[in-house]
């Protein structure tokens, strides 16, 4: 796949997910028990749930829950990686040592454990994915910075900047164009995209686990549903004769769409 085609695919996925999130209803439509468990061909586009409500509403609400915080975490990590890579070219050994120290401490604990301890701080009435996404981004940032800094180091670091200065290039052109856009771009976009996907999957996992224990989700209010609801609803179709396979397929399909979009973004940003 060419870089342009990959960029177009990534953009398409973003528009689809963003469109879904923006059109998400504030609350689910009223139950119509006579329309329960309808497959997609009888209740287009995605069928209905056990109470006869259209599954697109769950899909859209799920997108609204995870899209913003996931993108925010991804952008923050990409930004941190860019700054880390640029800082390496400034030859500031104390900064490198500081990043290494923070990375050592932050990276030594299992991320899920830190996220769960952070979740304890969320008041019951204000549960949201955003603070957890920020914690996840903070945990991922040192690794991303380290990798971007390694790329800058391989490029020559401060000597690379000196060489371009000798050519008469300005600071902005050197740091923004030659370093950030032309050289750090692949690693920065990959790190950002990976964290975006990780946070989206984190939301689905946390919501699913909460449902498994009959508890409210840590990531969204009870008025809203997550893509984990699609998995919970669809799971019985794997083991019992319950007609909810379409919900499972929709949930897995939505997750697959995110994976495709993420990989397309990484491919679009790869080096020439």
């Amino acid at each position: 796949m060419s870089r342009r085609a990959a960029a177009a695919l990534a953009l398409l996925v973003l528009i689809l997910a963003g469109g879904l999130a923006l059109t998400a209803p504030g609350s689910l439509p009223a139950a119509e028990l006579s329309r329960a468990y309808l497959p997609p061909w009888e209740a287009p586009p995605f069928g209905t749930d056990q109470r006869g409500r259209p599954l697109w509403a769950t899909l859209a609400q799920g997108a609204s829950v995870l899209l913003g915080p996931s993108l925010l975490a991804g952008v923050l990590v990409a930004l941190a990686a860019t700054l880390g890579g640029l800082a390496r070219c400034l030859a500031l050994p104390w900064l490198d040592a500081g990043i290494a120290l923070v990375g050592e401490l932050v990276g030594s604990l299992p991320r899920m454990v830190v996220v769960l301890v952070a979740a304890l701080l969320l008041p019951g009435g204000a549960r949201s994915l955003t603070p957890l996404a920020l914690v996840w981004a903070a945990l991922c940032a040192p690794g991303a910075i380290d990798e971007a800094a390694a790329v800058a180091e391989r490029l020559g670091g401060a000597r690379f900047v000196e060489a371009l200065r000798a050519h008469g290039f300005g600071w902005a052109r050197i740091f923004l164009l030659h370093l950030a856009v032309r050289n750090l771009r692949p690693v920065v976009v990959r790190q950002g995209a990976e964290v975006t996907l990780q946070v989206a999957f984190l939301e689905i996992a946390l919501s699913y686990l909460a449902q498994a224990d009959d508890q409210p989700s840590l990531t969204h209010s009870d008025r809203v549903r997550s893509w984990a609801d699609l998995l919970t609803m669809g799971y019985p179709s794997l083991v019992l004769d319950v007609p909810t396979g379409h919900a499972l397929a929709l949930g897995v399909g939505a997750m697959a769409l995110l994976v495709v979009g993420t990989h397309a973004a990484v491919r679009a940003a790869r080096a020439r």
Partner: protein
Amino acid sequence: MAGWWLRPLLRLGAAATLPLVVPALVAAVVWALPGDPAEIICPRSTCTGGAELAARWRLDAGPWAFYQAWLGDALGGEFGRSWRVLQGVPVAELLTEAVPNTLVLVGAAGLLVTLAGLGGLTGALGARAEALARAVGVAPAVLLGLLAAASIELRYGADAFGPDAASWRLVAGVAVLVLADGAFGGALAGARAATAAERAARYVGVAVLRGEAPLDNMLPNLAPALVGQLRARLVQLLSGAVVVEVVLRLDGVGDLLWTGTLLQDFGVVIAAATVFAVFSAVLLAAQAVAELIIGGVVRRVPEGLAS
């Protein structure tokens, strides 16, 4: 390089402080929440005698006193009592059951991930295996765990989550932990990439011309990076164990931490999080010791050159 021992020493320092810092953070969280911590156990609307209860649970003298008392007890093997999950039950009892399960789960998965790394290092597992492992590893643990749980339910029916199916759930858990979130693929890819980069070095070419095995020459230089990768993978497995244990209903520390978090049982959370911190500290210390040993061996003066 001068000061090569600084990083391992930093790791040892971090390993020594982690089990102290984590319970301190949890204690800080308890007091950071609005309201009196004793009300988490005994809400004023439903029970009386909050002051006595706070004194009994050491919640009456502030976070520092609570932390000191808890840490002192923990060093003696006493981890306090559950606040909500199983109110009043000693947490040590819960941990006695949970820790071995988590160790077996993560240990078996870690062994397989280590084998993946060795396969990448020796070339026994090539590009096709890496591509396959990476493709499977795209799936998150919750999704693979769900499929594994379904397969167990199909096999055992109503007894799927009873004691008879426990060993199958454990095997399924290990498989999910290894395959999900790119653990196996990442270990294989990491080892292959590090080996390929080292193999391109000039000294390896010279060694080959001398008729020596490349791996023998590369290993001392590669080992610190591979040990670091392995530690990162094991930490990833510990993180994934939380999801796998809950989905497959394995009674591990991750499951305990999750339930404690959902129910705001700080008695359970502080102990479970500290156990995870101890696991992480052991891994950090092991990496540091390995690096110090490798560094010492690599930098020793060759026999016959000493004056």
